[in-house]
């Protein structure tokens, strides 16, 4: 199979039929090229959709309350519902093992001042888990922890731009920021990929805000993430359960759309994935189709080549070529053309995808690529395709009777 002589025989045969070889190779190269580019584009589309989720954790669920829109169980409509600290435990205790991280959010506006610099900022009061849910990246210092929550500490974590605005060239860490007449210690500076607004936030323990801004146990919102081991469908069911539990707790009509609002990405992700799956399926079918037509092209041309070479193959048999050696010669020729042309197509496809890069971002195609798995898949497919393309003509070649091939006409 790998003897040098055999290959030189094949190269000689290919070399004598350049046009035929180039034409058959072209169909395969084109097939693979289209396959690669389509698949890459599909991946680009996938990337583009995924980036719309990356700012926050993908498995996040938001719980908010509003006013009831329907009368229920003797309560009037238009009743305002308020989340409270106890609701954190209410969610966790009713859903053991399902909650990964959970945090409340309370928003307060504030005028923050450091020395002569001051500005209006938003305080986002949270618990320690919030860091994971928001994918907050610490540049220096630390994030809020359990102790800050328990002790209602006056520690704050400020955004990169808050430090830049107020502290200028100073290091904010350990300094005190004055907000509404009270001094808070900066224990950390963070950055966030969510944009400038995110980086102008000030994080503080929600217990501190509850104490200092109204002395109550109110929460504006609860964010939680579900256990990643859960499937998308389970996650959707989980979000539905939280909504039902709260509606029951607050005596809200089950079909009241505005009183308790539970939102998860799970449904969005599911829909997106279904659409992407559909697109990828179409791409795959089209790609495979072009690949198959390329393979059939090779098979076709090889069949023709065998017919054209009937006499030569007959001579070879008369000189002692076994059917096996004829079959493997034709198979190897078909495989060689397929693999070389296919790889050429693959290479051009990859280069093309690189060249496209992020130029098609406007069309929701971001960083198109084909991964190693696909390249290996394509390689195996190519070899199999070559075998398949060569098989029929090779069988035909092996069946050539020298006596008929050599008949003088």
């Amino acid at each position, binding site marked *: 199979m790998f003897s040098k*002589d055999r290959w030189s025989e094949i190269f000689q045969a290919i070399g004598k039929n350049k046009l035929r070889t180039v034409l058959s190779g072209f169909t395969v190269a084109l097939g693979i090229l289209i396959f690669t580019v389509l698949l890459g584009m599909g991946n680009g589309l996938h990337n583009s959709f995924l980036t719309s989720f990356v700012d926050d954790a993908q498995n996040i669920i938001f719980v908010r309350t509003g006013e009831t829109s329907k009368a229920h169980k003797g309560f009037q409509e238009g009743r305002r519902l308020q989340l409270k600290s106890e609701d954190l435990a209410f969610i966790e205790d009713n859903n053991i093992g399902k909650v990964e991280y959970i945090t409340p959010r309370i928003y307060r506006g504030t005028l923050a001042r450091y020395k002569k610099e001051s500005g209006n900022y938003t305080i986002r009061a949270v618990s320690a888990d919030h860091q994971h849910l928001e994918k907050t990246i610490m540049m220096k210092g630390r994030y809020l922890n359990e102790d800050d929550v328990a002790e209602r500490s006056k520690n704050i974590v400020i955004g990169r731009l808050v430090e830049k605005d107020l502290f200028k060239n100073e290091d904010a860490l350990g300094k005190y920021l004055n907000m509404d007449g009270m001094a808070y210690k900066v224990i950390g500076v963070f950055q966030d990929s969510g944009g400038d607004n995110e980086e102008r936030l000030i994080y503080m323990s929600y217990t501190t805000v509850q104490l200092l801004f109204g002395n109550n146990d109110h929460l504006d919102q609860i964010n939680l993430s579900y256990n990643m081991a859960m499937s998308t469908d389970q996650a959707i069911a989980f979000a539905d359960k939280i909504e039902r539990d709260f509606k029951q707790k607050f005596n809200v009509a089950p079909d009241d759309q505005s009183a308790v609002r539970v939102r998860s990405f799970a449904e969005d992700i599911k829909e997106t994935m279904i659409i992407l799956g559909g697109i990828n399926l179409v791409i795959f079918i089209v790609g495979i189709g072009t690949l198959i037509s390329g393979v059939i092209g090779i098979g076709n041309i090889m069949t023709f080549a065998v017919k054209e070479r009937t006499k030569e193959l007959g001579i070879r048999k008369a000189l002692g070529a076994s059917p096996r050696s004829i079959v493997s010669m034709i198979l190897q020729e078909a495989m060689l053309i397929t693999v070389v042309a296919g790889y050429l197509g693959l290479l051009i496809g990859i280069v093309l995808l690189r060249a496209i890069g992020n130029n098609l971002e406007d069309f929701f195609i971001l960083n198109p690529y084909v991964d190693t798995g696909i390249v290996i898949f394509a390689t195996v497919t190519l070899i199999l395709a070559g075998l398949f393309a060569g098989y029929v003509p090779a069988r035909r070649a*092996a069946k050539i009777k020298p006596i008929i091939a050599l008949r*003088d006409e």
Partner: protein
Amino acid sequence: MENKDANAFTLHSNVYDMIEIKDLHKSYQMGSNSLHVLKGIDFKVAEGELVAIMGSSGSGKSTLLNILGMLDELDSGEYHLDDVAIRNLNETKAAKYRNKFLGFVFQSFNLINYKSALENVALPLYYQKKKRKARQKKALEYLDKVGLADWATHLPSELSGGQKQRVAIARALAAEPKVLLADEPTGALDSTTSYEVMDIIQAINDEGKTILVVTHEEDIAHMCKRIVHLKDGVIVEDKKIEQVRASNYV
């Protein structure tokens, strides 16, 4: 006539029989009709003979040669080549025996057009799985033997008809077969060239090679040592003759 045959065989009884055929039959199916081409051939060829097989077209001479060359199968009868029974061969075995026992020379040369003279001659050696160097060396040796060493790198299209046939003879000999089978080797050549080719065939025979030549040309047949006449599928005449040397005409 049967006496004659018997005499011929007695004459050769002390010589080794290279080819031995007994009661060979062969028919072809032509649609619903069966065409009985060979109707009981008994035939022996001793080592070192140069036999002409003659007959008009349809006499069965080509069929006989094809069966001798293992290019076709016999229906009934026996065929021994170098004491090996040739029967029920699968393709692989037939290929192996062809390569080992037989060299073919055809009317239309049947050289591979994209291979040089040397590569054509070396091809049977490739199927004998000889090493490249050894193949080249031996092929050149045989090309030299037919006087074409200088033409080794030329393609068949650059050679004359006579040269092509000489390359084909060199190719047939390169595998060092027991028997050389030539099917109308001079059929496509003018008479001068024909005699040149026969001169080479005689020279090879002089060295002891067993050769069968199918021909319909009387003058070519008389350059052999024995003529077997076929008619309607049977041997009608089998005689030893005085060989005419081709060198007289070259």
